[in-house]
């Protein structure tokens, strides 16, 4: 066998090998299952429980949201598990369920509820589950004015297994004022024995046109209560001044045209028609010259 033929055969086998490897790889890729991850957040805001499950696939290339995934939410206590409902993940992979606090939610003996966000899997997407436990709590925001000082009063309460309300003690509450893009932190306080705290409002923040500002008090990422939020508004802000640039009206819908338009039109038309009149006057003069001329060709043809 000639060397050239040997090389050809080796090359052929190499090609076959490569093809096989590639096919195997493709096959492997095609059957690769995706195991999604879920991050689960709980927010209890002014009598509404907001459960947010973010479902995504974490790869080397980055995190990819799994849109349209159906997330089933449930709540468990000591004795029972209750289905709360389901939500479809949006473009960013967020499935959100909102429940009124009044909803009967199962609790354990400590008053805690285990919330579960579950994706049952579909196609190449494997099932995923995440849980979060939180105790039902509530924050109320009030305001007081002592001499020239302004205070934000925060009261936090919790509901136990039997449904009785007790103060939340020794937890940190952060106070915010929402601004255009994010929340502006204006102070924090530790709750006392009575479940109350006080933050002095010193900022000169711009509110709405009436000077109203929204104050939000939060217990954040707490092991016992999760995220609890209360909010209220007060007119301590500086009224917002709306400086609207004076927009020139087009005046096209008014009975009279804009002055510039009238002036332009009159100027142009006057200029044009003045020239027309001048040309016509020249014609009249031509006629007059002929009348003065004794050899008027109207009576004396040139080419006779």
């Amino acid at each position, binding site marked *: 066998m000639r060397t050239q033929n040997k090389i050809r055969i080796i090359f052929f086998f190499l090609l076959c090998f490569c093809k096989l490897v590639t096919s195997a790889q493709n096959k492997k890729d095609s059957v690769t299952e995706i195991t999604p991850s879920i991050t689960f957040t709980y927010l209890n805001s002014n009598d509404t429980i907001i459960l947010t499950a973010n479902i995504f696939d974490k790869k080397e290339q980055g995190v990819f949201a799994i849109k349209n995934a159906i997330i089933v939410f449930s709540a468990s206590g000591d004795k029972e598990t209750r289905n709360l409902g389901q939500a479809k993940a949006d473009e960013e992979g967020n499935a959100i369920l909102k429940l009124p606090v009044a909803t009967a939610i199962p609790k354990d003996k400590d008053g805690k509820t285990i919330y579960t966000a579950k994706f049952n899997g579909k196609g190449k997407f494997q099932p995923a589950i995440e849980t979060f436990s939180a105790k039902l709590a509530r924050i109320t925001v009030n305001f007081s004015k002592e001499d020239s000082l302004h205070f934000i009063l925060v009261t936090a309460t919790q509901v136990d297994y039997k449904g009785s309300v007790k103060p939340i003690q020794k937890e940190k509450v952060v106070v915010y004022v929402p601004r255009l893009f994010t929340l502006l932190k204006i102070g924090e306080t530790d709750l006392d024995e009575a479940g109350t705290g006080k933050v002095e409002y010193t900022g000169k923040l711009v509110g709405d046109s009436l000077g109203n500002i929204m104050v939000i008090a939060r217990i954040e990422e707490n092991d016992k209560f999760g995220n609890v939020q209360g909010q209220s508004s007060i007119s301590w802000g500086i009224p917002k001044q709306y400086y609207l640039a004076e927009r020139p009206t087009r005046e096209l819908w008014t009975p009279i045209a804009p002055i510039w338009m009238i002036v332009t*039109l009159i100027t142009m038309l006057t200029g*044009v028609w003045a020239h*027309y009149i*001048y040309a016509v006057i020249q*014609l009249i003069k*031509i006629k007059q010259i002929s009348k003065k*001329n004794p050899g008027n*060709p109207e009576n004396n*043809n040139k*080419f006779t």
Partner: protein
Amino acid sequence: MENKDTKEKLLREFAPQLEKTSPATLVWILFLLGVIAWGVYAFVAQVTKGHIVTGMRDNVVWGIYIVNFIFFMGMSYAGAIISGTLQLFRTEWRKPIIRMAEYLAIISLLIGPGYILLCIGRLDRLHYLALFGRIQSPITWDVIAISTDIFGCLIFLYLSILRDIASLRDFSELKIPAWRKKIYSMLALGYTGLPEQVKRLRRATDIMATMVIAIAIIVYSVLAWIFSVTLQPGWHSTIFGPYFVIAAVYSGTGVLIIAMWVFRKVYRLDQYITRKHFVAMGVLMVVLAALFGYFTFSDYLTKWYGSEKNDESLIRILFTEYYWPFIFSNYIGVLIPLLVIGIPKLRTITNITLSALIVIVALWFNRYLIVIPTLESPYLPIQDSRPEWANYAGTWVEYALMAAGVALFCLMFTIASKFVPVMNVSEMSETPKTESSELFKTEESLL
């Protein structure tokens, strides 16, 4: 200075055109009258049955009528600009063709606005425009501008034919009825070529030449602004004014070349309208083709690059549904004159005339593509999605009235040439000035 012998010779030569109407011309006139009668029949059908007999509907409210209006107005402005410029620059080679440009200006101007009247649904309310017209409306600008232009062009034409009318009045060998002689005598205003009369006539003609150029530019810009002041895709463009003016002069140059070719053949003017004149007009057409191509490219490039949703949609329609008309009007219509004039071997009278014909058809399609596809791609969804409502197609009524307009244009040109020679006899009998001759020689050598 006029050469009397030359003038007499020319008048003798042109006299048969004015005195007699050949059987072929009579047949031609009858044919034109037949086409006009067909148009009248279509008009009656439109008035009695309403605009439902046209292809215009709620969405596409402008069709062939508006396309023809823009086209005829464009020819008029081209005639005005060309005749005005040639007059002002005293270009020597203008003499045999300037009259045709003047006829082109006024005849097109008289026909063009007629299409607006055809497009209006309620002609009985036309006078409302005068009674309740608002200066803010571009339509009002257009009405004022066009009526001003008509007066300007009529005065300019009268000034430029005055000397020929006087010559015809004085030419005793002319065998025409007495009433025609009387009309010539009346219109000649006693002009005898006295130095003071010559001075005043020249002054008035130069002023009016300047005015018709300025008015033509303004009026056609106003016409363009009717489109560009709206926010419609494809229309809202700052370059629409100059673009329209260039397109107008471009198409008008083509029509003028055709007119030169026709009158050269019909009246056997080979010795007066020579290849030089065709090449000179051809060079003008090439310059305008380049400018037209530049403006077209610039307009569509910015729209395409901006990627504004509706502009993208419009460009997609132009390159799909209107692919061949688009290619014809914006590529072939630009490239053919460039090739014909650019390659010396192709620079013949027939080729230049054929390329002018292509330019005219291309420019008509250009106007069609400006008006129709934009209206077919509105911002708001079309309520009734029936194809005949969403898309426009001209009907026989519209095409009949279009043909009638073209026939009327030809008829008026024919009649005008029977009243005053199609060439400026008085100017042609003048001894050329040295400077003009030198200029002409330079142009000739360049070609």
